Protein backbone atom coordinates (compact mmCIF):
# COMPACT_ATOMS: atom_id res chain seq x y z
CA UNK A 1 0.00 0.00 0.00
CA UNK A 2 1.54 3.24 -1.09
CA UNK A 3 2.12 5.70 1.71
CA UNK A 4 0.55 8.95 0.56
CA UNK A 5 0.15 12.03 2.69
CA UNK A 6 -3.62 11.54 2.91
CA UNK A 7 -3.29 7.88 3.90
CA UNK A 8 -0.67 8.77 6.51
CA UNK A 9 -2.91 11.34 8.18
CA UNK A 10 -6.07 9.27 7.83
CA UNK A 11 -4.52 6.24 9.53
CA UNK A 12 -2.96 8.24 12.34
CA UNK A 13 -6.18 10.17 12.95
CA UNK A 14 -8.04 6.89 13.23
CA UNK A 15 -5.41 5.62 15.67
CA UNK A 16 -5.71 8.78 17.77
CA UNK A 17 -9.47 8.19 17.99
CA UNK A 18 -8.71 4.66 19.14
CA UNK A 19 -6.45 6.01 21.89
CA UNK A 20 -9.14 8.47 23.00
CA UNK A 21 -11.74 5.70 23.04
CA UNK A 22 -9.50 3.41 25.09
CA UNK A 23 -8.78 6.22 27.56
CA UNK A 24 -12.47 6.93 27.93
CA UNK A 25 -13.13 3.23 28.55
CA UNK A 26 -10.41 3.21 31.19
CA UNK A 27 -11.72 6.34 32.94
CA UNK A 28 -15.23 4.88 33.10
CA UNK A 29 -14.15 1.55 34.59
CA UNK A 30 -13.30 0.94 38.22
CA UNK A 31 -14.61 -0.18 41.58
CA UNK A 32 -16.68 2.98 42.05
CA UNK A 33 -19.31 3.15 39.36
CA UNK A 34 -19.17 6.49 37.60
CA UNK A 35 -21.60 7.60 34.95
CA UNK A 36 -20.67 8.87 31.52
CA UNK A 37 -21.74 12.36 32.62
CA UNK A 38 -19.62 12.31 35.79
CA UNK A 39 -16.48 11.33 33.86
CA UNK A 40 -17.27 13.93 31.21
CA UNK A 41 -17.71 16.56 33.87
CA UNK A 42 -14.39 15.71 35.49
CA UNK A 43 -12.49 15.63 32.20
CA UNK A 44 -13.91 18.89 30.91
CA UNK A 45 -13.54 20.63 34.27
CA UNK A 46 -17.26 21.25 34.65
CA UNK A 47 -17.18 19.26 37.89
CA UNK A 48 -13.59 19.75 38.96
CA UNK A 49 -14.31 19.29 42.65
CA UNK A 50 -15.87 16.36 44.51
CA UNK A 51 -14.99 12.72 45.01
CA UNK A 52 -15.94 11.69 41.43
CA UNK A 53 -13.57 14.21 39.90
CA UNK A 54 -10.86 13.05 42.30
CA UNK A 55 -11.31 9.44 41.24
CA UNK A 56 -11.16 10.33 37.57
CA UNK A 57 -8.35 12.89 37.69
CA UNK A 58 -6.16 11.66 40.54
CA UNK A 59 -6.56 7.89 40.39
CA UNK A 60 -7.70 6.72 36.99
CA UNK A 61 -6.15 9.37 34.73
CA UNK A 62 -2.52 9.04 35.93
CA UNK A 63 -2.73 5.29 35.60
CA UNK A 64 -4.32 5.52 32.14
CA UNK A 65 -1.58 7.90 31.04
CA UNK A 66 1.11 5.62 32.40
CA UNK A 67 -0.41 2.61 30.62
CA UNK A 68 -0.41 4.63 27.41
CA UNK A 69 3.27 5.57 27.77
CA UNK A 70 4.33 2.03 28.68
CA UNK A 71 2.30 0.46 25.86
CA UNK A 72 3.68 2.92 23.32
CA UNK A 73 7.27 2.36 24.48
CA UNK A 74 7.06 -1.41 24.30
CA UNK A 75 5.22 -1.46 20.99
CA UNK A 76 7.63 0.89 19.21
CA UNK A 77 10.63 -0.99 20.66
CA UNK A 78 9.16 -4.17 19.18
CA UNK A 79 8.85 -2.58 15.74
CA UNK A 80 12.44 -1.33 15.85
CA UNK A 81 13.86 -4.65 17.06
CA UNK A 82 11.90 -6.51 14.40
CA UNK A 83 13.39 -4.28 11.71
CA UNK A 84 16.97 -4.22 12.98
CA UNK A 85 17.09 -7.96 13.60
CA UNK A 86 14.96 -8.69 10.50
CA UNK A 87 12.90 -11.04 12.62
CA UNK A 88 9.15 -10.75 13.26
CA UNK A 89 9.52 -12.61 16.58
CA UNK A 90 11.78 -9.98 18.12
CA UNK A 91 10.15 -8.31 21.12
CA UNK A 92 11.87 -6.61 24.05
CA UNK A 93 10.42 -9.15 26.50
CA UNK A 94 11.13 -12.24 24.39
CA UNK A 95 14.69 -11.07 23.65
CA UNK A 96 15.43 -10.56 27.33
CA UNK A 97 15.99 -6.82 26.96
CA UNK A 98 13.13 -6.06 29.36
CA UNK A 99 14.69 -8.56 31.76
CA UNK A 100 18.00 -6.71 31.54
CA UNK A 101 16.22 -3.42 32.20
CA UNK A 102 14.44 -4.91 35.23
CA UNK A 103 17.75 -6.20 36.55
CA UNK A 104 19.21 -2.72 36.18
CA UNK A 105 16.23 -1.20 37.95
CA UNK A 106 16.31 -3.69 40.81
CA UNK A 107 20.05 -3.23 41.18
CA UNK A 108 19.48 0.51 41.54
CA UNK A 109 16.71 -0.10 44.08
CA UNK A 110 18.80 -2.52 46.13
CA UNK A 111 21.93 -0.40 46.13
CA UNK A 112 19.91 2.79 46.23
CA UNK A 113 18.21 1.71 49.43
CA UNK A 114 21.67 1.60 50.97
CA UNK A 115 22.97 4.75 49.27
CA UNK A 116 19.75 6.65 49.82
CA UNK A 117 19.05 7.98 46.33
CA UNK A 118 15.59 6.52 46.08
CA UNK A 119 13.41 5.64 43.14
CA UNK A 120 14.65 8.34 40.81
CA UNK A 121 17.71 6.28 39.97
CA UNK A 122 15.57 3.40 38.69
CA UNK A 123 14.68 4.65 35.16
CA UNK A 124 18.28 5.55 34.20
CA UNK A 125 19.49 2.24 35.65
CA UNK A 126 16.82 0.34 33.72
CA UNK A 127 17.96 2.16 30.56
CA UNK A 128 21.55 1.04 31.19
CA UNK A 129 20.35 -2.52 31.85
CA UNK A 130 18.44 -2.56 28.56
CA UNK A 131 21.41 -1.10 26.68
CA UNK A 132 23.87 -3.63 28.03
CA UNK A 133 21.50 -6.52 27.29
CA UNK A 134 20.88 -5.36 23.70
CA UNK A 135 24.60 -5.00 23.18
CA UNK A 136 25.22 -8.52 24.52
CA UNK A 137 22.41 -9.84 22.34
CA UNK A 138 24.15 -8.45 19.27
CA UNK A 139 27.50 -9.86 20.32
CA UNK A 140 26.21 -13.32 21.23
CA UNK A 141 23.41 -13.97 18.74
CA UNK A 142 25.05 -11.94 15.98
CA UNK A 143 23.38 -9.37 13.79
CA UNK A 144 25.24 -9.24 10.52
CA UNK A 145 25.35 -11.92 7.89
CA UNK A 146 22.94 -14.57 9.07
CA UNK A 147 20.94 -14.42 12.26
CA UNK A 148 18.86 -17.50 12.78
CA UNK A 149 15.60 -17.01 14.59
CA UNK A 150 16.41 -19.91 16.87
CA UNK A 151 19.76 -18.49 17.89
CA UNK A 152 18.20 -15.17 18.78
CA UNK A 153 15.29 -16.64 20.73
CA UNK A 154 17.48 -19.07 22.66
CA UNK A 155 19.73 -16.22 23.69
CA UNK A 156 16.66 -14.29 24.83
CA UNK A 157 15.38 -17.23 26.88
CA UNK A 158 18.71 -17.56 28.65
CA UNK A 159 18.94 -13.80 29.27
CA UNK A 160 15.47 -13.86 30.82
CA UNK A 161 16.27 -16.82 33.05
CA UNK A 162 19.50 -15.18 34.17
CA UNK A 163 17.86 -11.80 34.77
CA UNK A 164 15.04 -13.35 36.84
CA UNK A 165 17.51 -15.28 38.97
CA UNK A 166 19.72 -12.23 39.47
CA UNK A 167 16.70 -10.06 40.34
CA UNK A 168 15.50 -12.49 42.98
CA UNK A 169 19.03 -12.82 44.36
CA UNK A 170 19.61 -9.07 44.57
CA UNK A 171 16.21 -8.42 46.03
CA UNK A 172 16.72 -11.09 48.68
CA UNK A 173 20.10 -9.70 49.65
CA UNK A 174 18.71 -6.18 49.88
CA UNK A 175 15.58 -7.30 51.73
CA UNK A 176 13.17 -6.09 49.06
CA UNK A 177 11.20 -9.30 49.07
CA UNK A 178 8.53 -8.13 51.48
CA UNK A 179 5.07 -7.42 50.17
CA UNK A 180 5.48 -9.26 46.88
CA UNK A 181 7.09 -6.19 45.32
CA UNK A 182 9.46 -8.39 43.35
CA UNK A 183 6.68 -10.64 42.15
CA UNK A 184 4.97 -7.59 40.68
CA UNK A 185 8.14 -6.52 38.87
CA UNK A 186 8.56 -9.97 37.39
CA UNK A 187 5.01 -10.35 36.09
CA UNK A 188 4.50 -6.73 35.07
CA UNK A 189 1.83 -4.46 36.45
CA UNK A 190 0.79 -0.85 36.83
CA UNK A 191 -0.94 -0.97 40.22
CA UNK A 192 2.18 0.08 42.10
CA UNK A 193 3.37 2.43 39.37
CA UNK A 194 5.21 5.41 40.76
CA UNK A 195 3.91 8.56 39.20
CA UNK A 196 6.92 10.47 40.62
CA UNK A 197 9.02 9.03 37.78
CA UNK A 198 6.44 9.80 35.06
CA UNK A 199 8.68 12.64 33.91
CA UNK A 200 11.56 10.25 33.26
CA UNK A 201 9.25 7.88 31.43
CA UNK A 202 7.83 10.61 29.23
CA UNK A 203 11.30 11.97 28.46
CA UNK A 204 12.72 8.54 27.57
CA UNK A 205 9.72 7.70 25.42
CA UNK A 206 9.85 11.07 23.66
CA UNK A 207 13.56 10.69 22.83
CA UNK A 208 13.17 7.10 21.67
CA UNK A 209 10.06 7.84 19.66
CA UNK A 210 11.52 10.87 17.88
CA UNK A 211 14.64 8.91 16.91
CA UNK A 212 12.55 5.98 15.62
CA UNK A 213 10.26 8.31 13.68
CA UNK A 214 13.15 10.17 12.07
CA UNK A 215 14.81 6.93 11.06
CA UNK A 216 11.63 5.35 9.63
CA UNK A 217 13.04 5.14 6.12
CA UNK A 218 16.31 3.71 7.43
CA UNK A 219 14.31 1.02 9.23
CA UNK A 220 12.71 0.09 5.90
CA UNK A 221 16.11 -0.16 4.27
CA UNK A 222 17.73 -2.06 7.15
CA UNK A 223 15.20 -4.83 6.50
CA UNK A 224 17.04 -5.49 3.23
CA UNK A 225 20.13 -6.29 5.32
CA UNK A 226 23.02 -4.16 6.51
CA UNK A 227 25.00 -4.27 3.28
CA UNK A 228 22.12 -3.55 0.89
CA UNK A 229 21.04 -0.70 3.19
CA UNK A 230 24.55 0.75 3.10
CA UNK A 231 24.56 0.39 -0.68
CA UNK A 232 21.37 2.49 -0.75
CA UNK A 233 23.07 5.27 1.18
CA UNK A 234 22.19 4.47 4.80
CA UNK A 235 24.93 5.19 7.34
CA UNK A 236 24.06 1.81 8.85
CA UNK A 237 26.40 1.76 11.84
CA UNK A 238 25.47 5.24 13.03
CA UNK A 239 21.74 4.67 12.52
CA UNK A 240 21.83 1.33 14.30
CA UNK A 241 23.63 2.88 17.25
CA UNK A 242 20.94 5.57 17.50
CA UNK A 243 18.19 2.96 17.26
CA UNK A 244 19.88 0.85 19.91
CA UNK A 245 19.87 3.82 22.28
CA UNK A 246 16.27 4.60 21.34
CA UNK A 247 14.98 1.11 22.12
CA UNK A 248 16.97 0.97 25.36
CA UNK A 249 15.47 4.29 26.47
CA UNK A 250 11.95 3.14 25.68
CA UNK A 251 12.32 -0.29 27.29
CA UNK A 252 14.03 1.25 30.31
CA UNK A 253 11.16 3.70 30.68
CA UNK A 254 8.48 1.04 30.42
CA UNK A 255 10.13 -1.44 32.77
CA UNK A 256 10.98 1.11 35.46
CA UNK A 257 7.29 1.83 36.05
CA UNK A 258 5.55 -1.37 35.01
CA UNK A 259 8.04 -4.22 35.40
CA UNK A 260 8.09 -7.01 32.84
CA UNK A 261 4.99 -6.53 30.71
CA UNK A 262 5.47 -9.02 27.90
CA UNK A 263 4.48 -9.39 24.27
CA UNK A 264 3.09 -5.89 23.63
CA UNK A 265 5.96 -5.36 21.18
CA UNK A 266 4.98 -8.55 19.41
CA UNK A 267 1.18 -8.26 19.29
CA UNK A 268 0.73 -4.67 18.11
CA UNK A 269 3.37 -4.54 15.35
CA UNK A 270 2.11 -7.85 13.99
CA UNK A 271 -1.52 -6.71 13.85
CA UNK A 272 -0.61 -3.33 12.37
CA UNK A 273 1.60 -4.84 9.69
CA UNK A 274 -1.32 -7.02 8.60
CA UNK A 275 -3.55 -3.96 8.21
CA UNK A 276 -1.15 -1.19 7.25
CA UNK A 277 1.68 -2.94 5.44
CA UNK A 278 5.36 -2.79 6.28
CA UNK A 279 6.38 0.86 5.74
CA UNK A 280 8.01 2.01 8.99
CA UNK A 281 7.30 5.68 8.38
CA UNK A 282 3.68 4.78 9.18
CA UNK A 283 4.27 1.68 11.29
CA UNK A 284 6.31 3.48 13.99
CA UNK A 285 3.77 6.21 14.87
CA UNK A 286 0.87 3.76 14.46
CA UNK A 287 2.60 1.32 16.82
CA UNK A 288 3.03 4.08 19.41
CA UNK A 289 -0.68 4.91 19.32
CA UNK A 290 -1.83 1.29 18.96
CA UNK A 291 0.44 0.06 21.76
CA UNK A 292 -0.80 2.85 24.02
CA UNK A 293 -4.46 2.04 23.37
CA UNK A 294 -3.86 -1.69 23.74
CA UNK A 295 -2.19 -1.47 27.13
CA UNK A 296 -4.84 0.97 28.41
CA UNK A 297 -7.54 -1.57 27.54
CA UNK A 298 -5.52 -4.48 28.99
CA UNK A 299 -4.95 -2.54 32.20
CA UNK A 300 -8.64 -1.65 32.47
CA UNK A 301 -9.45 -5.34 32.19
CA UNK A 302 -6.73 -6.17 34.73
CA UNK A 303 -8.16 -3.64 37.19
CA UNK A 304 -11.76 -4.76 36.95
CA UNK A 305 -12.09 -8.35 35.68
CA UNK A 306 -11.92 -9.92 39.16
CA UNK A 307 -14.08 -7.39 40.93
CA UNK A 308 -12.18 -6.02 43.92
CA UNK A 309 -8.90 -7.81 43.28
CA UNK A 310 -6.46 -6.65 40.61
CA UNK A 311 -4.75 -8.85 38.07
CA UNK A 312 -1.26 -7.87 36.96
CA UNK A 313 -1.53 -6.42 33.44
CA UNK A 314 1.44 -8.56 32.39
CA UNK A 315 -0.75 -11.63 32.92
CA UNK A 316 -3.30 -10.26 30.44
CA UNK A 317 -0.74 -9.38 27.76
CA UNK A 318 0.95 -12.77 28.19
CA UNK A 319 -2.38 -14.59 27.82
CA UNK A 320 -2.87 -12.83 24.47
CA UNK A 321 0.77 -12.75 23.39
CA UNK A 322 1.89 -16.26 24.29
CA UNK A 323 -0.38 -18.04 21.79
CA UNK A 324 0.36 -15.42 19.12
CA UNK A 325 4.08 -15.94 19.65
CA UNK A 326 3.71 -19.70 19.19
CA UNK A 327 1.67 -19.15 16.04
CA UNK A 328 4.31 -16.82 14.60
CA UNK A 329 7.11 -19.17 15.62
CA UNK A 330 5.44 -22.00 13.77
CA UNK A 331 4.86 -19.81 10.72
CA UNK A 332 8.48 -18.72 10.58
CA UNK A 333 10.02 -21.98 11.73
CA UNK A 334 13.39 -22.85 10.26
CA UNK A 335 13.36 -19.68 8.29
CA UNK A 336 16.69 -17.95 8.13
CA UNK A 337 16.77 -14.53 6.59
CA UNK A 338 19.93 -14.04 4.63
CA UNK A 339 20.79 -10.60 3.30
Amino acid sequence: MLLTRSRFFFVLSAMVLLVVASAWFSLLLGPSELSFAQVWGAVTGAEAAGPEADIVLRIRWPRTLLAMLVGASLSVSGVVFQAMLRNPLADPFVLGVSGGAALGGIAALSLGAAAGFGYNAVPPAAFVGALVTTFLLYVIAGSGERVSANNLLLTGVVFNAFASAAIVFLASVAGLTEGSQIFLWLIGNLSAARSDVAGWVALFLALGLVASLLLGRSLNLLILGDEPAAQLGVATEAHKRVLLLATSLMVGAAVSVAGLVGFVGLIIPHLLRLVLGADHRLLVPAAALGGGAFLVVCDSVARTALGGRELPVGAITALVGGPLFLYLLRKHQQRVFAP
Partner: protein
Amino acid sequence: MTQTRSLEFRDVSVRLGARSVLRGVSFDVKPGEIVGMVGHNGSGKTTLLRVATRVLRQDGGEVLLGGESIAGFSRAALARALATVPQDTQLPYPFTALEVVLMGRAPHQPLFGLDRPEDLAAARAAMAEVGIEEFEARSIQKLSGGERQLVMFARALAQEPEFLLLDEPTSFLDLRHRIDLLGAVRRRVDAGAGALVVSHDLGLAARVCDRLVLLSHGEVVAVGPPGEVLEASVLERAFGVAADIVTAPDGSPLVVPRLSS
Protein backbone atom coordinates in the same frame (compact mmCIF):
# COMPACT_ATOMS: atom_id res chain seq x y z
CA MET B 1 22.08 11.05 -18.40
CA THR B 2 25.44 12.27 -19.47
CA GLN B 3 28.44 11.84 -17.28
CA THR B 4 32.15 11.82 -17.60
CA ARG B 5 33.29 10.06 -14.45
CA SER B 6 34.76 6.60 -14.79
CA LEU B 7 35.03 3.89 -12.17
CA GLU B 8 38.52 2.60 -11.65
CA PHE B 9 39.94 -0.26 -9.60
CA ARG B 10 43.61 0.34 -8.91
CA ASP B 11 45.67 -2.54 -7.53
CA VAL B 12 42.84 -3.73 -5.24
CA SER B 13 43.72 -6.52 -2.80
CA VAL B 14 41.44 -8.16 -0.24
CA ARG B 15 42.17 -10.78 2.38
CA LEU B 16 39.35 -12.53 4.21
CA GLY B 17 40.98 -14.17 7.21
CA ALA B 18 44.03 -16.01 5.98
CA ARG B 19 42.70 -16.27 2.43
CA SER B 20 43.75 -13.82 -0.22
CA VAL B 21 40.53 -13.18 -2.20
CA LEU B 22 41.69 -10.41 -4.54
CA ARG B 23 45.26 -9.65 -5.56
CA GLY B 24 46.27 -6.50 -7.40
CA VAL B 25 43.06 -6.13 -9.40
CA SER B 26 43.21 -3.17 -11.79
CA PHE B 27 40.78 -2.20 -14.53
CA ASP B 28 38.24 0.50 -15.20
CA VAL B 29 34.66 0.97 -16.38
CA LYS B 30 33.95 4.00 -18.50
CA PRO B 31 30.64 5.74 -19.01
CA GLY B 32 28.94 4.35 -22.08
CA GLU B 33 30.30 0.81 -21.78
CA ILE B 34 29.24 -2.49 -20.31
CA VAL B 35 32.08 -4.43 -18.74
CA GLY B 36 31.44 -8.09 -17.98
CA MET B 37 33.21 -9.77 -15.10
CA VAL B 38 33.61 -13.52 -15.55
CA GLY B 39 35.50 -16.19 -13.66
CA HIS B 40 35.11 -19.40 -11.70
CA ASN B 41 33.12 -19.64 -8.46
CA GLY B 42 35.09 -17.99 -5.68
CA SER B 43 37.29 -16.04 -8.08
CA GLY B 44 36.45 -12.80 -6.25
CA LYS B 45 33.78 -11.23 -8.50
CA THR B 46 31.19 -10.51 -5.81
CA THR B 47 33.94 -9.42 -3.40
CA LEU B 48 35.04 -6.77 -5.89
CA LEU B 49 31.48 -5.39 -6.12
CA ARG B 50 31.38 -5.19 -2.30
CA VAL B 51 34.66 -3.28 -2.31
CA ALA B 52 33.31 -0.90 -4.97
CA THR B 53 30.30 -0.04 -2.80
CA ARG B 54 32.48 0.20 0.31
CA VAL B 55 30.63 -2.42 2.30
CA LEU B 56 33.94 -4.31 2.40
CA ARG B 57 37.21 -2.52 2.96
CA GLN B 58 40.10 -3.52 0.73
CA ASP B 59 43.48 -4.28 2.27
CA GLY B 60 45.41 -2.65 -0.52
CA GLY B 61 44.86 -0.40 -3.52
CA GLU B 62 41.90 1.87 -4.04
CA VAL B 63 38.66 2.41 -5.93
CA LEU B 64 38.38 5.72 -7.75
CA LEU B 65 35.31 7.47 -9.07
CA GLY B 66 36.18 10.27 -11.46
CA GLY B 67 39.73 10.12 -10.14
CA GLU B 68 38.71 10.55 -6.48
CA SER B 69 38.99 7.76 -3.94
CA ILE B 70 35.53 6.54 -2.89
CA ALA B 71 36.80 6.50 0.70
CA GLY B 72 36.01 10.23 0.79
CA PHE B 73 32.41 9.89 -0.41
CA SER B 74 29.42 9.94 1.93
CA ARG B 75 27.27 6.81 1.84
CA ALA B 76 24.50 8.69 0.08
CA ALA B 77 26.83 10.26 -2.49
CA LEU B 78 28.25 6.83 -3.26
CA ALA B 79 24.74 5.39 -3.57
CA ARG B 80 23.80 8.12 -6.05
CA ALA B 81 26.79 7.07 -8.17
CA LEU B 82 26.68 3.27 -7.85
CA ALA B 83 23.64 0.98 -7.73
CA THR B 84 23.94 -2.74 -7.01
CA VAL B 85 21.58 -5.57 -7.73
CA PRO B 86 22.30 -8.39 -5.30
CA GLN B 87 22.12 -12.07 -6.27
CA ASP B 88 18.92 -12.66 -4.34
CA THR B 89 17.00 -10.79 -1.68
CA GLN B 90 14.34 -12.18 0.62
CA LEU B 91 12.41 -9.90 2.91
CA PRO B 92 10.78 -10.95 6.18
CA TYR B 93 7.96 -8.39 5.82
CA PRO B 94 5.29 -7.84 3.17
CA PHE B 95 6.58 -4.76 1.33
CA THR B 96 4.91 -4.24 -2.03
CA ALA B 97 7.02 -4.30 -5.19
CA LEU B 98 6.52 -0.55 -5.63
CA GLU B 99 7.68 0.10 -2.06
CA VAL B 100 10.83 -1.91 -2.73
CA VAL B 101 11.53 -0.04 -5.98
CA LEU B 102 10.97 3.26 -4.14
CA MET B 103 13.76 2.26 -1.72
CA GLY B 104 16.09 2.95 -4.63
CA ARG B 105 15.19 6.63 -4.28
CA ALA B 106 16.58 6.78 -0.73
CA PRO B 107 19.97 8.30 -1.66
CA HIS B 108 18.17 11.15 -3.44
CA GLN B 109 15.76 11.84 -0.57
CA PRO B 110 16.13 13.73 2.68
CA LEU B 111 16.46 11.52 5.77
CA PHE B 112 12.86 12.00 6.85
CA GLY B 113 9.67 12.34 4.86
CA LEU B 114 7.27 10.67 2.48
CA ASP B 115 8.11 9.89 -1.15
CA ARG B 116 7.87 12.91 -3.43
CA PRO B 117 6.09 12.91 -6.81
CA GLU B 118 9.43 12.76 -8.63
CA ASP B 119 10.40 9.67 -6.62
CA LEU B 120 7.16 7.99 -7.52
CA ALA B 121 7.61 8.93 -11.18
CA ALA B 122 11.16 7.51 -11.25
CA ALA B 123 10.03 4.29 -9.55
CA ARG B 124 7.09 3.78 -11.89
CA ALA B 125 9.24 4.55 -14.95
CA ALA B 126 11.81 1.98 -13.80
CA MET B 127 9.10 -0.64 -13.33
CA ALA B 128 7.71 0.11 -16.77
CA GLU B 129 11.18 -0.17 -18.28
CA VAL B 130 11.52 -3.70 -16.87
CA GLY B 131 7.92 -4.55 -17.73
CA ILE B 132 6.70 -5.19 -14.18
CA GLU B 133 4.09 -2.44 -13.77
CA GLU B 134 1.51 -5.06 -12.86
CA PHE B 135 3.53 -6.07 -9.76
CA GLU B 136 3.05 -2.64 -8.23
CA ALA B 137 0.73 -3.60 -5.36
CA ARG B 138 1.92 -7.20 -4.99
CA SER B 139 3.80 -8.31 -1.90
CA ILE B 140 7.47 -9.00 -2.55
CA GLN B 141 7.06 -12.18 -0.49
CA LYS B 142 4.58 -13.59 -3.00
CA LEU B 143 6.84 -13.15 -6.03
CA SER B 144 9.02 -15.87 -7.56
CA GLY B 145 12.82 -15.65 -7.53
CA GLY B 146 12.89 -14.32 -11.08
CA GLU B 147 10.17 -11.76 -10.41
CA ARG B 148 12.02 -10.58 -7.30
CA GLN B 149 15.15 -10.18 -9.38
CA LEU B 150 13.29 -7.92 -11.80
CA VAL B 151 12.01 -5.83 -8.88
CA MET B 152 15.55 -5.46 -7.51
CA PHE B 153 16.77 -4.47 -10.95
CA ALA B 154 14.01 -1.87 -11.25
CA ARG B 155 15.10 -0.57 -7.84
CA ALA B 156 18.64 -0.07 -9.20
CA LEU B 157 17.24 1.79 -12.23
CA ALA B 158 15.12 4.01 -9.96
CA GLN B 159 18.33 4.88 -8.15
CA GLU B 160 19.45 6.64 -11.39
CA PRO B 161 23.11 5.84 -10.76
CA GLU B 162 26.14 6.60 -12.88
CA PHE B 163 27.11 2.94 -12.75
CA LEU B 164 25.03 -0.21 -12.48
CA LEU B 165 26.80 -3.02 -10.66
CA LEU B 166 24.93 -6.22 -11.37
CA ASP B 167 25.73 -9.53 -9.68
CA GLU B 168 24.35 -12.37 -11.77
CA PRO B 169 21.34 -10.26 -12.71
CA THR B 170 19.83 -12.91 -14.94
CA SER B 171 20.42 -16.06 -12.86
CA PHE B 172 16.72 -16.64 -12.11
CA LEU B 173 15.35 -15.28 -15.38
CA ASP B 174 13.97 -17.02 -18.43
CA LEU B 175 15.36 -16.21 -21.87
CA ARG B 176 12.77 -13.52 -22.62
CA HIS B 177 13.41 -11.63 -19.40
CA ARG B 178 17.20 -12.00 -19.73
CA ILE B 179 17.09 -10.23 -23.04
CA ASP B 180 14.69 -7.57 -21.73
CA LEU B 181 16.85 -6.87 -18.68
CA LEU B 182 20.07 -6.67 -20.67
CA GLY B 183 18.28 -4.44 -23.18
CA ALA B 184 17.40 -2.08 -20.35
CA VAL B 185 21.03 -2.06 -19.21
CA ARG B 186 22.12 -1.23 -22.76
CA ARG B 187 19.65 1.68 -22.98
CA ARG B 188 20.96 3.16 -19.73
CA VAL B 189 24.52 2.76 -20.95
CA ASP B 190 23.71 4.38 -24.28
CA ALA B 191 22.25 7.26 -22.29
CA GLY B 192 25.60 7.76 -20.55
CA ALA B 193 25.76 5.35 -17.60
CA GLY B 194 28.32 2.57 -17.21
CA ALA B 195 27.73 -1.03 -16.15
CA LEU B 196 29.75 -3.79 -14.52
CA VAL B 197 27.99 -7.13 -14.88
CA VAL B 198 29.01 -10.36 -13.16
CA SER B 199 27.96 -13.37 -15.17
CA HIS B 200 28.55 -17.08 -15.51
CA ASP B 201 26.93 -17.10 -18.92
CA LEU B 202 29.95 -16.53 -21.15
CA GLY B 203 27.90 -16.52 -24.36
CA LEU B 204 25.54 -13.84 -23.15
CA ALA B 205 28.44 -11.88 -21.66
CA ALA B 206 30.25 -11.95 -24.99
CA ARG B 207 27.20 -10.61 -26.79
CA VAL B 208 26.21 -7.91 -24.37
CA CYS B 209 29.49 -6.61 -23.01
CA ASP B 210 31.87 -4.23 -24.68
CA ARG B 211 34.77 -5.58 -22.68
CA LEU B 212 35.30 -8.56 -20.42
CA VAL B 213 37.42 -8.91 -17.31
CA LEU B 214 38.40 -12.50 -16.56
CA LEU B 215 39.23 -13.21 -12.91
CA SER B 216 40.89 -16.36 -11.66
CA HIS B 217 41.82 -16.94 -8.01
CA GLY B 218 41.52 -13.25 -7.27
CA GLU B 219 43.71 -12.03 -10.11
CA VAL B 220 42.87 -10.47 -13.45
CA VAL B 221 43.85 -12.97 -16.11
CA ALA B 222 42.66 -11.01 -19.12
CA VAL B 223 40.91 -7.75 -19.97
CA GLY B 224 39.69 -6.77 -23.38
CA PRO B 225 37.05 -7.20 -26.03
CA PRO B 226 35.17 -10.53 -25.73
CA GLY B 227 36.88 -11.92 -28.80
CA GLU B 228 40.27 -11.50 -27.17
CA VAL B 229 39.38 -12.70 -23.69
CA LEU B 230 37.42 -15.78 -24.72
CA GLU B 231 40.43 -17.67 -26.06
CA ALA B 232 40.63 -21.42 -25.57
CA SER B 233 44.05 -21.25 -23.90
CA VAL B 234 43.01 -18.39 -21.59
CA LEU B 235 39.82 -20.17 -20.54
CA GLU B 236 41.65 -23.40 -19.86
CA ARG B 237 43.97 -21.54 -17.51
CA ALA B 238 41.12 -19.65 -15.80
CA PHE B 239 38.50 -22.40 -15.49
CA GLY B 240 40.60 -25.56 -15.90
CA VAL B 241 38.25 -26.67 -18.66
CA ALA B 242 39.05 -27.34 -22.29
CA ALA B 243 36.67 -25.58 -24.63
CA ASP B 244 36.11 -24.87 -28.30
CA ILE B 245 35.43 -21.31 -29.34
CA VAL B 246 33.06 -21.09 -32.27
CA THR B 247 31.74 -17.98 -33.94
CA ALA B 248 28.05 -17.23 -33.78
CA PRO B 249 26.29 -15.95 -36.94
CA ASP B 250 26.52 -12.39 -35.57
CA GLY B 251 30.27 -12.73 -35.16
CA SER B 252 30.39 -12.99 -31.37
CA PRO B 253 32.39 -15.83 -29.82
CA LEU B 254 30.57 -18.81 -28.33
CA VAL B 255 32.24 -21.03 -25.75
CA VAL B 256 31.48 -24.73 -26.08
CA PRO B 257 33.08 -26.65 -23.22
CA ARG B 258 34.34 -30.18 -23.87
CA LEU B 259 32.66 -32.57 -21.52
CA SER B 260 35.68 -34.87 -21.05
CA SER B 261 39.19 -33.58 -20.86
